[in-house]
């Protein structure tokens, strides 16, 4: 019955940030489905070298969110179009630090969010995924 939706792969303009392709991993950077974009979990990848950027946790989070902005903008969306984020921290003690960075990036009307603390690979301190609305539109309300 009911409606179906289009599905397409989205990729970052900067190839250094295309982690799944560069490391030959079996996932896409993101999928656009109908009006939504679902991004894979992202980490602090350096946009120039493509390597890991494992500095202080606040800097890792900033780098990850900048990469996320690039990824979304590559698909005609943006951080201000994010609906829901899931944040995985390697250390639950970094929660307050994460919130400090969050306020820099989302000063008004931040996305819905769930955070938890889990084992992460490659020494990453943070991994972030999101669901965002696709293309910008002049009619969006907030």
């Amino acid at each position: 019955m009911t409606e179906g939706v289009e599905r397409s792969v989205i990729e970052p303009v900067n190839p250094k940030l295309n982690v799944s392709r560069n490391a030959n991993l079996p996932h896409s950077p993101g999928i656009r489905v109908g009006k939504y974009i679902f991004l894979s979990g992202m980490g602090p990848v350096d946009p120039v070298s493509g390597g890991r950027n494992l500095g202080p946790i606040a800097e890792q989070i900033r780098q990850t969110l900048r990469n996320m902005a690039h990824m979304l903008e590559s698909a005609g969306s943006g951080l201000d179009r994010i609906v829901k984020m899931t944040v995985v921290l390697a250390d639950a003690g970094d929660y307050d630090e994460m919130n400090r960075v969050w306020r820099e990036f989302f000063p008004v009307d931040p996305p819905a969010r769930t955070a938890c603390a889990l084992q992460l690979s490659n020494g990453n301190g943070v991994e972030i995924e999101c669901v965002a609305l696709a293309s910008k539109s002049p009619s969006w309300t907030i």
Partner: protein
Amino acid sequence: MREVIPAPLPGLDLRREYGHHQSAAIRAGGLVFCSGMVAIDPETGERQHGTVTSEARRIFENLKLLLESAGSSLDRLVQVHAMIYDRIEYDVLNRLYRQYVPNAPPARTVVSVQIEAGFKVMLDVIAAAETRQAAAATYPRQVIEVRISDADRSRRPGLPLSPAIRAGEFVFLSGLTATDPVTAAQARGTVAAETRLILTNMGQLLGAAGSSLAKVVKVNALIYSMLEYDNMDSVYREFFPTDPPARTVCGAGLTGGQKVEIECVALA
């Protein structure tokens, strides 16, 4: 429109087999939300514990059946949360995983958590229903404002998240932890007590967003230990008496000393 997708084979009905209070999948807004899938025999429901490889293969075969019965397929997976018992098996999972999604694979996040019943793998997926027409072009994003009494942890001053966002057909809620609806203070208690408070608050929050618990399509519940599963579940089922949402439960570290955190996606 919220449509419950029944299990295509009797063994895949975890509600019947194991009393899990969840629907196999819910189709809504052009998407198919599946409950967390584990390695069970689709005919008999028997648990097939094995290696990461054997469990993941069983899971993909089960998902293929389930998605096809919901008008979708593995080719149309959108997002996968791959849960494995230990991060060290990441490459093992990938080797099998790529066989099932060789082209344009879904967005994915792999996390290491406690999985029910001693399984090594669980896949929590969202897929796109088959296309019949192109989607329209412009979509508003609306932050749901809540009254102070619509308690959730975002009432803690200055926490940089919105409790709920409406986008398209759906309302996406932040993970809720137990807070007192009057004082907005953290309310720590047993898993049962926290679950009850969270779901009560969730009902209010959804109401403020023009939705309701009956319109929830997918729930993700995190509890600090899977040993508390039944304590969460016994309360949970009171709140979703009929046609419960698709659901995934796992054991994970929570911030701030809470025992339970629950998020959901609901139809607006």
